[in-house]
């Protein structure tokens, strides 16, 4: 764990990408594989679930450091991070400095001590934490606090972590990224498998890393000749890959979740696809010849059981837009033009639930802009622009795939306050306030009234009434548990808001039941949106 703490500090201590990669690379070279596996887990943005509420950890820290609660509050208001406050208090209270004591290794700490705490009661957790504190130095206590509260974040992007591991293993980053896809679990063996030589992989179920589009920040004219680009509608569903190999079929979401069983009504699609095929596309609820709103699909995902009624209400379809593997061959390096031709042949006439994401025909960028304005009526989010000459890349490199959305901004925020709405909704809690993270605290950033279905409104209303933690007049503070994706038209600095940020026309886009509050956005990510807002604002349709 000491080595990992050193890596954490080294990453924190530099803003240079090369220095970060070098630090990770030498860590991978030196650390035992079991530790390296867990380090990689965090370096690629994976998280452990919260084991202990930060408040409880603070109470124990106060007790051990013999600091009264009010004093801890005083310290917290200066530090702004509860885990760090606890670590600093503990470090200050130590009677002797014993940096020489050997802390547990990262893997044995997590696997041997922390994960078993999931089953433990509060007394047991307390006993274990107190014992651990004795053997750790300051930054290790800080990391422990972050691990316990599920807030362990390392200052690198997943792409950078993968690049470092690829350099360490002497492999192309795409190979490492591919091996990390799907249900990768950290262990010495799985780490060894990641870095083993050779680029062909045996695991039949594994999808390819997704190629992600970047938001278009200029007028499309800047992309050059219209003829060089494929335009498609931007579908509002679940991005997914169908992997048809080894006699089986696997449907992977972009979140690297295997969702094959959630879409039994697509079984005809994979049955119809030839062996050795991988398609990239979007799972949609699709009725007649039009996509249904995302909320319909989401309601279906939320159900434990797929009843015939649900299948009828929200019939799924796979909207294919790329082919990554054909006849068992990795075709990602082919130019889009060729992959497209292949895709058209593969998809045609196979199944009524397998659709081709068609090319949006428009001779000029101007004509395309006109079509884009009709996005909302079509139930799509705007347009995708893909360079005809481009290979299928890994991650989010800029330049070949652009999303040209009508509602350009989107954040994940936590519901913190609710109050009754007006008019028809006066009896229901529909006036909602959402917050994002700032230095370990949730700061309100937006109010939104619309976007949920009536069913969701009823469900949320019940939940709010049962989970109110404080009341100020009609306003209820609720447990910060639920995450919602908000879309909005604009974002700017504002001195009138506590967060320093104002968003324009926020709407609730979806209830992210798949996300924990820790996964909500931070004030920093909102500031980054402001930075690009000046440029992006112009192409709002």
């Amino acid at each position, binding site marked *: 764990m000491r080595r990992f703490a050193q890596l954490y500090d080294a990453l924190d201590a530099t803003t240079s990408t090369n220095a970060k990669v070098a630090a990770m690379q030498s860590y991978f070279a030196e650390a035992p594989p079991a530790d390296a596996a867990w380090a990689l887990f965090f370096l690629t943005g994976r998280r452990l679930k919260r084991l202990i509420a930060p408040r409880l950890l603070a109470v124990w820290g106060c007790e051990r450091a013999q600091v*009264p609660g009010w*004093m801890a509050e*005083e*310290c917290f208001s200066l530090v702004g991070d509860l885990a*760090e406050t606890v670590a*600093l208090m503990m*470090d*200050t*209270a130590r009677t002797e400095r014993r940096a020489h004591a050997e802390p547990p290794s990262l893997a044995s700490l997590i696997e041997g001590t922390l994960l078993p705490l999931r089953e433990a009661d509060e007394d047991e957790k307390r006993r274990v934490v107190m014992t651990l504190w004795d053997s750790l130095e300051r930054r290790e206590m*800080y990391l422990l606090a972050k691990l316990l509260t599920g807030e362990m974040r390392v200052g690198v992007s997943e792409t950078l972590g993968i690049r470092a591991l690829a350099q360490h293993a002497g492999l192309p980053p795409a190979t490492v990224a591919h091996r990390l896809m799907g249900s990768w679990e950290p262990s010495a063996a799985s780490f060894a498998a990641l870095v083993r030589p050779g680029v062909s992989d045996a695991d039949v179920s594994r999808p390819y890393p997704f190629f992600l589009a970047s938001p278009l920040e200029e007028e499309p004219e800047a992309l050059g000749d219209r003829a060089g680009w494929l335009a498609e509608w931007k579908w509002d569903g679940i991005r997914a890959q169908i992997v048809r190999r080894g006699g089986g079929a696997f449907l992977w979401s972009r979140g690297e979740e295997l969702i094959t069983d959630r879409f039994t009504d697509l079984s005809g699609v994979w049955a119809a696809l030839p062996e050795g095929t991988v398609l990239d596309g979007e799972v949609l609820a699709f009725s007649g010849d039009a996509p249904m709103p995302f909320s319909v699909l989401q309601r279906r995902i939320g159900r434990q059981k797929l009843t015939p009624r649900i299948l009828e209400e929200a019939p799924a379809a796979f909207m294919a837009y790329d082919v990554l593997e054909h006849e068992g061959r990795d075709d990602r390096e082919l130019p889009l033009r060729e992959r497209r031709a292949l895709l058209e042949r593969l998809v045609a006439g196979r199944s009524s639930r397998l659709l081709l994401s068609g090319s949006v025909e428009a001779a000029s960028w101007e004509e395309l802009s006109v079509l884009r304005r009709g996005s909302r009526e079509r139930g799509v989010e705007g347009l995708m622009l893909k360079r005809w000459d481009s290979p299928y890349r890994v991650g989010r490199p800029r330049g070949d795939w652009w999303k040209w959305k009508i509602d350009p901004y989107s954040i994940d925020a936590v519901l913190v306050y609710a109050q009754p709405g007006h008019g028809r909704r006066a009896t229901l809690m529909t006036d909602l306030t959402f917050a994002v993270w700032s230095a370990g605290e949730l700061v309100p950033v937006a109010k939104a009234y619309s976007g949920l279905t009536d069913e969701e409104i009823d469900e949320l209303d019940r939940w709010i009434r049962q989970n109110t933690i404080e009341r100020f007049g009609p306003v209820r503070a609720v447990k910060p548990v639920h995450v919602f994706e908000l879309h909005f038209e604009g974002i700017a600095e504002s001195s009138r808001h506590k967060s320093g940020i104002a968003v324009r026309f926020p709407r609730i886009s979806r209830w992210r039941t798949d996300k924990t509050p820790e996964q909500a956005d931070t004030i920093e990510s909102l500031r980054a949106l402001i930075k690009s807002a000046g440029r992006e604002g112009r192409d709002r349709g």
Partner: protein
Amino acid sequence: MIVDSPQGLFCPGGPFHLDPLGPVQRAVITHAHGDHARAGNAAILCTPQTAALVKRRLGEGTVIEILEYGERRRIGEVTVSLHPAGHMLGSAQVRIEGPAGVWVLSGDYKREPDPTCAPFEPLRCDVFVTEASYALPIFRWDSAASVAAEIASWWQGNARKASLLFCYALGKAQRLLAELARVTERPVFVHGAVEPFAEIYRAAGVRMLPTRLIGEERSFAGELVLAPITARGTPWMKRFRAFESGFASGLLRIRGTRRRRGFDRGFVISDHADWPGVLKTIRETGAQRVLAMHGHRDALVRWLREAGVDAAPIGLAAPPLDPEGD
């Protein structure tokens, strides 16, 4: 024997002010930092080392009466002596003996060893007036030697860039030069605000790394440069094409400080007493009453009272935590 006045702490038995906020007739000065030694006083009393630094800062015209550490001087109805505070060269605690017993004003102080000044001398007293710049139970300093090693390795790692280390020009800069002299012999480039004080430190016998005043050099690749924070963002910075910036201060104990202030690196080193230092010092004075000033004085006072110590705040309402010369 020490009371608040519009011009800061005041000893009516003298009468004289202590580190006054504005011009007064007679002042006792604990040390040469700007928030303690201000211009415009008719006469000041301080240690010889402080006198040299104050003359440099405020000009030769200042009327200065010198008092060596431990030397006693009768002023009015009290007897005053100055004792090492361990904060910086010449820094002193003020001991005042009079009809109301023995009072000690700590001035700025720290308990960690510092090669640039005499170590803090614990004094028994009835009333102890302590600074509280870092008096919260999250502040505890690592050894300066380990911080110097961190700085040295950062410097060494920046072979193709300048290592631009910001710190207070008086006190912290010289302490860093002295601490670094234990791990290297390489010369250090310094901003014009640092060098004159370094000369005075050298004259006082402090061993430090050789310094070079920044002049017309074109390249600072691989060099360490010490500069005051006030130089940040000024045209003076234009000469550095490739650099990493560091900041040396006790405030860096809090991780977010570095990011909030936009430095690449933070080094936690302070010339003020940390939490264990403040508590230990209060204990050692044996004082029945403690008065706290600066920084987190209100938190310290409440904590002491809850521990059964007679305590109260004194001086200005706590200024924001960014003590000069920290």
